[in-house]
């Protein structure tokens, strides 16, 4: 095999600080087998990783999990990341963020908060999150965040059981003073794959959601930015997952494993390196998991000869794994894919409203 040219520098690092989380969302993208707390990287190691990431060209750091506020050293980690001159975004459910902690995060230089929303009313939100009282606490935290002047993005995770509340969800975000809302339909990895039948929206719901979003974009123009990620099962072409494998971002899991995307561990043939053993720059440039699906050499037909191959990069490798059982396959969502029938048959066999399966919670 010939040597590939060195990859361009990554822009974003997603740091999964911990898998611990007080919520139990049935669509959580964390692995089904969660590593234990004592395997988590310590403060100094994370700080070193942030420095290595900045040296490598990373501009944006997303602190995620699990629930990052479950880490006692969250404030120190934010300070270390700002020290490394990174833009620091906290991705949180809000649970565990007290007023005192928010003050400390503000003093440490936290740039932006992205708050997840499980539902727009306590009943549904607490049922999805599997945590009674979670909605009321989240609301209080949201107000404390905007009171301090932090820019807030609301991340509304949408699926069959809450997509009908979309218009209400968007106005809820605007009333809270969110600067952005991300309307993200559940993607089927991790726990979401296990709960797919209960979560996959109907075509009618998706069409209605598109109209709602288009209208809201007009209504809130200039006041709140709206990003919409529709469920790709209903699309003709797959999403350009991660902007192309190993081309713009990387993930570090709680125990230090470096992944090209958060679901990459579902691909059995990949082997991953750890920040405790190999420098981040070397993993990015030469890591076997990163090299595996870079560029075109790995592509099968129809992708290899397709005009869209530099637009969607053949779609998502983890989705090919999840649906076709083969990470080298064309993303089954693509209408040219040999496995598209798998997706069509899932869509044709959605359960009726009154027989939706019960959630398997992430516990």
């Amino acid at each position: 095999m010939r040597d590939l040219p060195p990859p361009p520098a990554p822009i974003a690092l997603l740091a999964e600080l911990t898998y611990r989380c007080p919520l139990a969302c049935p669509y959580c993208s964390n692995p089904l087998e969660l590593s234990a707390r004592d395997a988590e990287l310590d403060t100094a190691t994370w700080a070193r990783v942030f420095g290595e990431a900045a040296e490598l060209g990373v501009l944006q750091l997303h602190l995620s999990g699990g629930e990052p506020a479950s880490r006692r050293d969250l404030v120190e980690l934010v300070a270390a990341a700002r020290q490394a001159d990174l833009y620091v975004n906290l991705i949180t459910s809000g649970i565990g963020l007290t007023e005192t902690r928010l003050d400390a995060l503000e003093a440490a230089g936290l740039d932006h908060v992205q708050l997840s929303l499980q539902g727009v009313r306590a009943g549904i939100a607490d049922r999805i999150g599997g945590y009674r009282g979670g909605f009321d606490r989240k609301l209080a935290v949201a107000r404390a965040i905007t009171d301090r002047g932090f820019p807030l993005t609301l991340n509304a995770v949408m699926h069959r059981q809450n997509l009908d509340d979309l218009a209400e969800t968007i106005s809820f975000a605007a009333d809270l003073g969110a600067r952005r809302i991300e309307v993200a339909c559940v993607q089927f990895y991790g726990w979401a794959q296990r709960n797919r039948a209960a979560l996959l929206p109907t075509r009618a719901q998706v069409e209605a959601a598109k109209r709602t979003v288009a209208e809201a974009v007009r209504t809130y123009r200039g006041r709140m930015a709206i990003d919409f990620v529709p469920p790709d099962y209903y699309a003709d072409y797959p999403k350009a997952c991660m902007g192309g494998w190993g081309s713009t971002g990387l993930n570090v899991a709680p125990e230090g494993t470096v992944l090209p995307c958060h679901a990459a561990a579902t691909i059995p043939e990949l082997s991953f390196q750890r920040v405790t053993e190999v420098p981040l720059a070397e993993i990015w440039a030469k890591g076997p998991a990163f090299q595996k699906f870079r560029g075109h050499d790995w592509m099968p037909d129809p992708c290899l000869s397709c005009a869209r191959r530099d637009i969607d990069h053949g779609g998502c490798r983890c989705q090919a794994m999840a649906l076709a059982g083969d990470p080298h396959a064309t993303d089954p969502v693509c209408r040219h894919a040999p496995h598209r029938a798998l997706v069509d048959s899932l869509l044709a066999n959605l359960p009726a409203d009154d027989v939706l399966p019960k959630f398997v919670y992430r516990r």
Partner: protein
Amino acid sequence: MTPARADAVFADPLIRMPRGVRLHQDRVRGLPALLGPERALMLDEIGLAILSELGEGVRLSVLIDRLAARYDAPRDEIAGDVRAFLDVMQVQRLVDYADA
């Protein structure tokens, strides 16, 4: 300062970068960048010139005067480009407009 409402159109808005949006010198790529929520934009010379004039907030008319002087260019020519650039940024909430 409250951000502009969606339906408000200001002839001569006061422009500023909201909290959470900042300029950054990208040492690795050797380029100026604008960092904001979920955004990292590499800036060309014009974009950088406009955004570095914003400071704590500046009137559009004043901004255009300054850029016209700095680039020794006709004011009308500059005005259209600047407004077009800022309108795109404002929709993304990377800059805010206010009246007062």
